[in-house]
């Protein structure tokens, strides 16, 4: 029985369904061509897989097929062979690198291939811990050393109270001196520029910290700084002051007054402490700076004086030679001003001469020279008001008042004249010389002339160029009866004497004139005193002449005379006083007690005319002095009858 059934054998749907439309129609993908199929399969090859992974390939292939079925993966590829190419390229690169490395390694110059130990060495934990501990210990040691250093420096400051702190000293320095910071250094200034000085030389100094443990800068504390209390006598200073070489050492200005190559007096301008102390290299900074300031001041003073000496016109030009100014003040007398600057090296040599001349040291002139420059400084900074705030100069006070007080041209020109320092010093020195000469004359006369006493009183109020002396001429024991007063004004180059009678005598600098005047005055005093005494004794003054025209001519002045009569008129005394020869006293009797008629004079009445004078031998007279002798003479001649 055989009936056959047709069995339809169909190929399965080879093509994948692309999409199913809504009406149920299935749209198939076109089957892959042979080349497409190849490229697809090639893309699936993983070249990176190692040999050992090849066994698993069949499984992977299945997976790859599954992945390949995803149309998105396939379409992402830009170009069918792109991934294949990339992989091949990477492989090439790696092979190239490998070949390069091998080539370098073969050279054995730059690279050496060593077998890598398969097993890393066993790390013991304790070793690491010990290593760390050691490292930390080292770090701690470094820290401790640093901390120790800080601690020592701190504790040393606390312990060594005698060593002042650098900053404390700096503060002290700042309070007394001008300081500023330039770069890394501290610069100070000792010049008087802020006080009005216009000297060009700078007074810069440098402040630095002193090195530790230098006993060389042990020195006494600053004496002048007002705030510093009584410090221990020897303290090391934490400051070091470095001065320029031209300001080191000690300077002073020496003033001699020379008379025909013979020093009359000399003065040294320097502070006494500096004179004795000398320039020590390890002085305290305060003293060091003061010395430097003094050096600068002396230099400025000398500079100023030398400039003026060159410019000043005079009958005898002033000379400036080296460190010396020679100015003539009076005929035969020269003023020599010298600048002495001794640095530490030659201090011993130059400190000798001032020591010898110390007896002639004149503090007044020293002071006035100082004062003159200080005055100039003061004037430079203190202008009278009103003055422009921006301008360095203003009109003087006199000039300000010139307008309101209607000053004329002459007065204005007088106003504009100003004296230089040198002129002022010369004037003061002239006055000084004049005063010395006047003193000398007065004392010499007082010593020479014993009879009338000459008492001179110097006025305590005077100025640097004017002094006054009162001369009193009197006789010992008779000072209430008569005294002659003279006042002598001592000026710069002249003397003015105001006499008892009000007459004024002007004299030049020659002392002989004063001497002559005084001697004349002494003899006039004698005559005046005799007259006053006669009045007391009851005697009559018959005649009196201060300037007698008779007798021999006097070398100096005139002789003066007076004639006195006894109370009853029978005795006469004639006194003649000559400045050179002294006193002559003569007496006459009229009438004489005993009368002998002669052929010529026959009657007694003629005797009343007065007889001839007989000179008294004055040196044989009793009495202490002239007036005493006169008193005794008068007393003996006064007859009771």
């Amino acid at each position, binding site marked *: 029985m055989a009936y056959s059934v047709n069995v339809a054998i169909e190929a399965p749907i080879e093509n994948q369904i692309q999409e199913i439309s809504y009406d149920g129609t299935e749209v198939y993908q076109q089957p892959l061509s042979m080349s497409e199929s190849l490229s697809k399969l090639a893309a699936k090859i993983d070249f990176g897989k190692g040999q050992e992974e090849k066994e698993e390939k069949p499984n992977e292939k299945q997976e790859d097929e599954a992945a390949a079925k995803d149309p998105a993966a396939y379409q992402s590829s830009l170009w069918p062979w792109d991934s294949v190419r990339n992989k091949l390229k990477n492989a090439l690169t790696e092979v190239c690198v490998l070949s390069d490395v091998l080539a370098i390694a073969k050279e054995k110059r730059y690279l050496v291939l060593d077998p890598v130990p398969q097993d890393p060495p066993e*790390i013991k934990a304790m070793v690491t811990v010990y290593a760390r501990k050691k490292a930390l210990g080292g770090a701690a040691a470094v820290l401790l050393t640093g901390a120790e250093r800080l601690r020592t420096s701190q504790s040393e400051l606390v312990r060594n109270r005698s060593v002042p702190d650098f900053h404390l000293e*700096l503060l002290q320095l700042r309070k007394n001196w001008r300081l500023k910071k330039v770069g890394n250094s501290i610069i100070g200034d000792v010049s008087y520029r802020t006080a009005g000085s216009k000297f060009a030389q700078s007074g810069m100094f440098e402040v630095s910290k002193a090195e530790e443990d230098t006993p060389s800068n042990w020195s006494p504390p600053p004496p002048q700084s007002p*705030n510093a209390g009584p410090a221990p006598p020897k303290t090391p200073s934490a400051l070091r002051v470095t001065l320029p070489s031209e300001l080191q050492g000690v300077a002073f200005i020496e003033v001699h007054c020379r008379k025909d190559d013979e020093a009359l007096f000399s003065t040294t301008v320097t502070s006494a402490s500096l004179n004795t102390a000398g320039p020590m290299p390890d002085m305290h900074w305060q003293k060091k700076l003061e010395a430097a300031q003094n050096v600068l001041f002396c230099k400025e003073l000398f500079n100023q004086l030398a400039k003026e000496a060159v410019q000043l016109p005079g009958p005898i030009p002033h000379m400036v030679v080296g460190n010396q100014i020679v100015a003539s003040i009076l005929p035969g007398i020269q003023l020599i001003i010298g600048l002495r600057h001794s640095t530490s090296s030659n201090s011993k040599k130059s400190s000798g001469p001032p020591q010898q001349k110390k007896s002639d040291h004149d503090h007044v002139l020293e002071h006035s020279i100082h004062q003159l420059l200080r005055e100039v400084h003061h004037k430079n900074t203190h202008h009278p008001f009103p003055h422009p705030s921006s301008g360095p100069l203003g009109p003087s006070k006199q000039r300000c008042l010139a307008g309101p007080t209607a000053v004329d041209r002459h007065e204005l020109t007088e106003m504009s004249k100003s004296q230089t320092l040198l002129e002022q010093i010369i004037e003061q020195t002239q006055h000084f010389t004049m005063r010395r000469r006047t003193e000398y004359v007065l004392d010499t006369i007082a010593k020479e002339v014993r009879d009338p*006493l000459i*008492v001179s009183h110097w006025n305590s109020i005077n100025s640097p160029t004017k002094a006054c002396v009162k001369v009193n001429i009197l006789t010992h024991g008779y000072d209430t009866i008569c005294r002659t007063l003279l006042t002598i004004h001592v000026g710069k180059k002249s003397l003015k004497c105001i006499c008892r009678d009000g007459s004024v005598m002007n004299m030049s600098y020659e002392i002989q004139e004063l001497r002559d005047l005084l001697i004349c005055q002494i003899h006039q005093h004698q005559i005046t005193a005799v007259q006053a005494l006669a009045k007391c004794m009851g005697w009559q003054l018959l005649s009196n002449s201060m300037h007698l025209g008779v007798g021999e001519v006097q070398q100096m002045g005139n002789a003066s005379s007076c004639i006195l009569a006894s109370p009853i008129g029978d005795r006469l005394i004639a006194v003649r006083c000559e400045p050179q020869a002294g006193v002559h006293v003569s007496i006459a009797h009229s009438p004489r007690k005993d009368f002998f008629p002669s052929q010529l004079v026959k009657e007694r009445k003629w005797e009343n005319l007065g007889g001839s004078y007989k000179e008294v031998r004055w040196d044989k007279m009793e009495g202490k002095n002239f007036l005493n002798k006169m008193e005794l003479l008068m007393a003996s001649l006064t007859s009771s009858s």
Partner: protein
Amino acid sequence: MAQRGLPQSKEALLKSYSARLKDDVKSLLENFEEIIKLAKGESDSQLSRMTQCEQDTYEMHVRSANIVRAGESLMKLVSDIKQYLILNDFPSVNDAITQNSKLFRQKQSEADQKLMMLRDDMAADLYDLEEEYYNSVYKCRIAD
């Protein structure tokens, strides 16, 4: 205010002081932190252990030295600021000057007064002495 009047350079100096302060303090802190980190030792590197330990030791030393340096730098800063204050503290300098000048003026007036008194006394005594000297028989040799 006084601050406004400061010139540019002073302003910059003050700023540099404050920057130095901050830097130094920061350096102290950072270096300390780094040392602590190193002490933990959690660094993973390809170096061998010994090299690593050696490096750590060296680094710790350097960092601790840095701390010390920062500390000393702070001390230096303190000193610098002190110096700056001393040199630029004009009010206190003015005070000192005023005080000094007052003191010296006072001293001057005192000295003047004393000198005046001395002069008066001496003038009075000199008058008497002159009177006595010139009235006496004995007179000294006068030096020229």
